[in-house]
């Protein structure tokens, strides 16, 4: 079933790395929200609802929406929070506009690096009943998934190394100061330093609007939501086949059905995939029906998914370039919105009319989402 009202993205602000320490977290959130409103050409008074997303443990605040509500314009406004994933804020915002009860939504997410150990903060996500005593942080979970994928598909390692190199090359072209060195410290086999990047502070904001608002204001650069799907894997890693991504397959089916897409491999001009590791990108290729696993190595080698190729994936450089951990999912959606709106800057793909964003988060991509955005409201 489709949405009653079709939302469009009318503004974005993507700040995948904020190195300076002269602004507090609340000020960073304020800055990002203001940038997105400016990009949309509207003021906070035009916003009739807000959805924010962040992780209380990364933020160091027991209820992160509380202090963040001021900076995003939450005073005397309808505000909700989806701390499960940054992409969930987009989804809830889209449902709210989709219901016809809201004309606009401001979607804001952030990910600071003020916690002394990201790994320790993430380990708190392991249940105390069976798993807390294990060294289970997000990187370990990705490593478990990577080893499962290698076991199921022997050519995966070579393909993963090629994907990592592709995304780093994209990152060098997309950003003036991409990082030269990946995450230091012990790695988790089979994940190598080249396959991850250190957490950075980042923030992202999108503005969604309903067609009548867009028409009233004469807004031109719109990325229309053609379809979205989201789903979750079960709780325990041991209950999952880590070499597979059924939740993403379910999410993709839902998104494609709504968007009327029957041949995903040829339907998109650009895609952004949450490459927490290159193995996650490979699994996403398959679950999104872009490339089955037996073709991973070949496609990685022949440049199909590189800039200039058949379907450029992660021209933004992906998570491998900048890793503002909690925001990475929503940033993929914002990147595609910018591509379709013609505002992606140095990494703009020419004539990007229809794009696919994949957002994954949690232990070994437990949460998965797929979003289709396009210049045309209808196919």
């Amino acid at each position: 079933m489709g949405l009653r009202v079709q939302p469009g993205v009318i503004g974005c602000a993507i700040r995948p790395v904020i190195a300076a320490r002269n602004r507090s977290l609340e000020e960073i959130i304020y800055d990002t929200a203001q940038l997105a409103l400016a990009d949309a050409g509207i003021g906070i008074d035009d916003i009739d609802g807000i959805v924010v997303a962040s992780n209380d443990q990364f933020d160091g605040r027991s209820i992160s929406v509380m202090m963040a509500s001021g900076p995003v314009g939450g005073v005397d406004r309808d505000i909700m929070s989806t701390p499960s994933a940054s992409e969930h804020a987009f989804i809830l915002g889209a449902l709210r506009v989709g219901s016809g009860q809201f004309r606009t939504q401001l979607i804001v997410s952030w990910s600071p690096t003020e916690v002394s150990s990201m790994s320790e903060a993430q380990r708190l996500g392991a249940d105390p009943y069976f798993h807390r005593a294990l060294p289970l942080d997000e990187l370990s979970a990705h490593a478990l998934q990577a080893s499962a994928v290698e076991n199921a598909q022997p050519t995966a390692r070579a393909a993963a190394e090629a994907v990592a190199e592709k995304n780093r090359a994209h990152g060098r072209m997309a950003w003036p100061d991409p990082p030269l060195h990946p995450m230091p410290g012990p790695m988790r086999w089979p994940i190598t330093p080249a396959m991850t990047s250190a957490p950075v502070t980042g923030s992202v904001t999108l503005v969604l609007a309903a067609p009548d608002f867009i028409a009233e204001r004469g807004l031109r650069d719109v990325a229309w939501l053609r379809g979205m799907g989201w789903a979750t894997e079960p709780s325990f890693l041991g209950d999952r086949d880590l070499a597979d991504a059924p939740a993403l397959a379910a999410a993709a089916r839902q998104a494609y059905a709504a968007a009327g897409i029957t041949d995903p491999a040829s339907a998109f001009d650009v895609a952004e995939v949450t490459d927490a590791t290159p193995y996650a990108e490979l699994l996403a290729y398959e679950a999104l029906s872009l490339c089955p696993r037996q073709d991973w190595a070949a496609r990685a080698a022949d440049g199909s998914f590189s800039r200039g190729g058949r379907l450029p994936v992660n021209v933004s450089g992906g998570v491998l370039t900048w890793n503002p951990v909690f925001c990475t999912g929503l940033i993929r959606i914002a990147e595609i919105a910018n591509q379709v709106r013609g505002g992606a800057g140095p990494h703009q793909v020419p004539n990007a009319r229809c794009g696919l964003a994949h957002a994954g988060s949690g232990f070994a991509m437990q949460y998965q989402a797929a979003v289709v955005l396009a210049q045309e409201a209808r196919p």
Partner: protein
Amino acid sequence: MSTDRVGIIGIGQSEFRSRRDDASYPELVREGVALAMQDAGLDFDAIEAVVYSLSPDAMVGIGNAERLGVDAVGGRNKPFLRINNGGATGISAVAAAYYHVASSMFDVVLTAGADKIGECGDSQTVLNKIWDPSYERPLPLGTINMLAMSAVRYMQRYGMTEQDMARVTVKNRRQAALNPKAHLRKVVTIDEVMASRTISWPIKLLDCCPQSSGGAAMVLASERFIRDNHLDAVWITGVGHSAETYWMGDRMGNNPTAEHANAYALGRSFEKSYRMAGITDPARQVQVAELYAPFSNTEFHAIDAARLVAQPGESIARLRDGEFELGGRIPVNPSGGTLCTNAIAVTAMARVAEVALQVWGRAGAHQVMGARLGIASGNGGDHQIFGTMVIEA
């Protein structure tokens, strides 16, 4: 008949208690879910999406604990997201589920959660860390003393006394005694409340909510689904959220927009849901109210904000006159309310559940006779984010 409404077709609540050592957190979630699914008469295949209700992770001691609850809600490979609006989470989760259905994308949505406050040895420590580290964290702020300060201002503005506060506890305990799901069900007298030890003046022990453990869940469905399947339902006709400034000091001083004695944003939230439901005279049209009030004094400004009285402060005299008890003009918190049961992640959902049961005629011994229109509210953050709903038969 309109085909646009969103209905409630199933409700489940645990019998809330201090500790549930017999159940892990996911098992507690499952408890509420099983009751709601049974009530709706559906199996899990019928659920198309899930909204998970969970406020501070620190209370259950598991980061992003909703991930652990995926199986308990039958969420595998299904659309799933979690809401956290502090204490308002439960009503915000129902609202999020409402938007899932109202968007036309889904016909049947489950919302569920649980809390185990009793397992967290330091709930006020956790609740101290909701304040910002830049300024207010070093102060011994917690939810109790924050609302004690609201009481102090309400006393000064409207003449509320400690006896008036005690009356709220007495009323709610008497009502909780009739509700098998409530946590604190022992009837108390005004003298007993007044004699209980002071926690943060003027709030005494018996003016405070308990720390409860338990789960709750609700199943929402589209009117089309309800009609096609010949189901019984009650209807969510109004939904709204609003927030006020996070800064408590800005709710005092010179001409604050939101006054800390009152519940400004709760009033603004009710304006939205009343407008949506077409309610123009709440004091006449509302027949039952479940208003989130974890401390006795806060029930007064909630009643004021819901405009069940003509002027702020009038709630004090009207409560003394018996208007807000079972048998009175507009029973408030006939379930015993948050004052008698507070499993934070789902407390505000229980408010919606209780109003739904009331207008459905299924509230048992604490039924408000003939109630067909009711309101529910939830408060989150430092008395900052408020969700409200109107539910009708």
